[in-house]
């Protein structure tokens, strides 16, 4: 198929077609030369045969302004012969008697040819100039009407109408689907749709980023011409034009159409970019709102809590050690700490659900993260035996240290609430295949297999959960780890207890490599 098409390409004599002169011009050239010859017979007695040469020259120049180069040169040659034959002595013979007349004839021939050539060239460049002007006017109009239209649809409608009026064809647009194939159905502003076969040609033009169909080098037997809406290396759709059966579009027009298609592509791209910007603005605005809301809620909840807490602390100091009010105050203090934890968990959960968590990645010493989590939870987890087993030569990893620390803390708190005092809570950390794996395992009773899938749901509380939790700690772990691009799983472990496994894809850096550098 491909090779067949390329032989067709070669055989198409497209280049010269636009410049070819119609036969009528040749006839006109002969006709006017004959007419002038007839008139010259009447004038000869008045002006002499030499002046007639000037009349012939005038004719050649006049024809040069109107006609193509071929007919003008024909008129020049015919004039020279007619003048010689009819007027130069010896008359009615091509023979020239005098040396002066022979010279005159030679010069007339040369001047007539030169004049014919020059004037037709002048005309050709004038025509080209006019074409250029028309072309830039058309492009300007396209930019004006389509590019600056208030919305994409009216812009595309204007582009199709303009194409139809300018080229005298019918136009259709096929835009790109999100899945990067051209749409099957034309844009509503189009004035025709394609047969299955023609659609194939349009798709070919789209896929190869080359014009195809009628008047082009690819599949010229088609009914319509198809031009990709190309921007850079991408095609954003196809512009199809359907000419009437006897219409011919030259390469210059096809080229102009291609420029049209490119401009329409640019208009489409402009629209895509604008929509992207708008989308981002909307997202940004909603995120700003979420943040402001969270900040204000956090302020409104925590300010009175701070006042109560400060008041209790002042009272504890004032009442001195011992006594029942001291015990009461300490109970209130404990309750306040718990309330604060609940508020923090609720705020964190809201942050996760509104997607405003943006991890800040930095190099972390995983051992330090675990120690920090241990410090943070010491008041609760301190009554369990904590075993920390880090892989030998554990590298530094790139992650958000604060988020990871909070995840490990929450898992430690969870482990402590699921197991008895004096039992072992074991933490391990290693890096396997570019993934940081942190496990937290307790020696509690574990939970029913049927409850395992729900354990990371917000506010889910196991049937045997102890009082005091918020039901949010594990949901927060899951949310944070997801924000970091990793996952967390849970399973009952043997002989008893539960094991949580955090898996995070991370960049790693071996400390000993660094020491050589430092």
């Amino acid at each position, binding site marked *: 198929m491909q090779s067949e098409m390329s032989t067709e390409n070669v055989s198409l004599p497209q280049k010269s077609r636009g410049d070819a002169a119609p036969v009528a011009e040749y006839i006109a050239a002969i006709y006017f030369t004959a007419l002038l010859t007839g008139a010259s017979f009447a004038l000869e007695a008045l002006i002499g045969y030499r002046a007639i040469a000037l009349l012939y020259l005038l004719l050649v120049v006049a024809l040069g302004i109107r006609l193509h180069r071929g007919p003008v040169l024909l008129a020049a040659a015919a004039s020279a012969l007619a003048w010689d034959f009819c007027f130069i002595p010896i008359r009615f013979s091509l023979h020239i008697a005098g040396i002066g007349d022979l010279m005159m004839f030679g010069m007339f021939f040369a001047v007539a040819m030169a004049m014919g050539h020059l004037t037709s060239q002048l005309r050709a460049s004038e025509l080209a100039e006019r074409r250029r002007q028309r072309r830039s006017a058309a492009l300007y109009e396209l930019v004006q009407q389509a590019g600056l239209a208030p919305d994409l649809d009216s812009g595309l409608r204007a582009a199709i109408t303009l194409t139809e009026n300018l080229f005298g064809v019918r136009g259709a647009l096929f835009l790109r689907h999100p899945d990067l194939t051209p749409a099957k159905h034309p844009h509503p502003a189009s004035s025709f749709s394609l047969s299955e076969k023609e659609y194939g040609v349009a798709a070919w033009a789209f896929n190869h980023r080359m014009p195809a169909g009628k008047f082009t080098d690819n599949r010229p037997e088609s009914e319509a011409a198809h031009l990709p809406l190309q921007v850079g290396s991408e095609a954003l759709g196809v512009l199809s034009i359907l000419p009437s059966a006897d219409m011919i579009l030259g390469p210059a027009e096809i080229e102009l159409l291609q420029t049209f298609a490119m401009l329409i592509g640019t208009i489409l791209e402009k629209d895509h970019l604008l929509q992207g910007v708008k989308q981002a603005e909307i997202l940004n605005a909603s995120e700003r709102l979420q943040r402001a809301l969270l900040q204000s809620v956090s*302020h409104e909840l925590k300010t009175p809590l701070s006042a109560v807490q400060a008041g209790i602390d002042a009272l504890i100091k004032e009442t001195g050690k011992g006594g029942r009010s001291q015990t009461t105050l300490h109970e209130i203090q404990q309750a*306040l700490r718990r309330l604060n934890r609940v508020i923090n968990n609720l705020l964190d959960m809201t942050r996760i659900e509104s997607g405003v968590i943006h991890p800040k990645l930095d190099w972390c010493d995983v051992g330090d993260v675990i120690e*920090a989590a241990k*410090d943070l939870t010491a008041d609760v987890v301190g009554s369990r035996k904590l075993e920390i087993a880090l892989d030998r030569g554990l590298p530094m990893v790139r992650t958000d240290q604060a988020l990871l620390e909070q995840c490990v803390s929450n898992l430690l708190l969870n482990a402590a609430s699921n197991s008895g005092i004096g039992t072992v809570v074991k933490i391990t950390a290693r890096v396997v295949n570019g993934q940081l794996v942190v496990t937290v395992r307790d020696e509690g009773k574990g939970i029913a297999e049927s409850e395992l899938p729900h354990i990371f749901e917000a506010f889910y509380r196991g049937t045997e959960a102890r009082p005091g939790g918020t039901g949010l700690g594990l949901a927060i772990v899951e949310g944070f780890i997801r924000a970091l691009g990793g996952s967390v799983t849970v399973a009952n472990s043997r002989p008893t207890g539960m094991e949580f496994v955090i898996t995070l894809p991370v960049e790693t850096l071996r*400390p000993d490599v660094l020491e050589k550098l430092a």
Partner: protein
Amino acid sequence: MSENATALVIDDEPQIRKLLQVLLEQENYRALESENGRQGIADVAQRRPDVVLLDLGLPDMDGLVVLERIRQWSQVPVLVLSVRDGPADKVAALDAGADDYVTKPFEATELLARLRAIQRRVHGEVEAARVEAGHLVIDFASHIVTVGGREVKLTSTEYALLKILALHAGKVVTQKQLLREVWGPNAEEQSQYLRVYMMHLRKKIELPGAAQRLLKTESGIGYRLVVPTSTEAGQS
């Protein structure tokens, strides 16, 4: 520590101001109050407090701006007291010149310990020849560091790191500041160096099995050399 130091509370919540005043007076501070940023700046200038407790969410201007204005002409120790608890908020305040940061709601004991720590630096106590923190003693004159009475050998980088933390004992020091002061201004983003040297430093000075580490990590912010309360009680 000098008796009856003056503490200025800049906070728009009257209840917080009142209760902080009670807490501060229990600790023998003379407490002053400002209810907005503009007045706070004026009070710092006119009443010359020894320490400032600054809220970030003020009605007339952001607390960070207040801090920056104060820092243009005053080195008074400033403790930021805010409900904003993200690491980025804390780093922003510390970068703007805050000496330390406590989130609301706060525990009185922690707040007062931080206040003492940031005042100590200004009162020149850490300009003394040595700093003690639990089992750790750093002698600046002789460059000798002892842990539980036994001398430990530190490399020059480890010593430089420990010295900065000790000069700010009890205060958080941002990661950026540590990197800048030990490795130079071009190393501010090279946190990996800091992690490695902190790892080494901890191996040498932390006692295994201690209830609390001396070098505390403030995730996403920096590090703090903890001065255990028993030492503090001994000092005052």
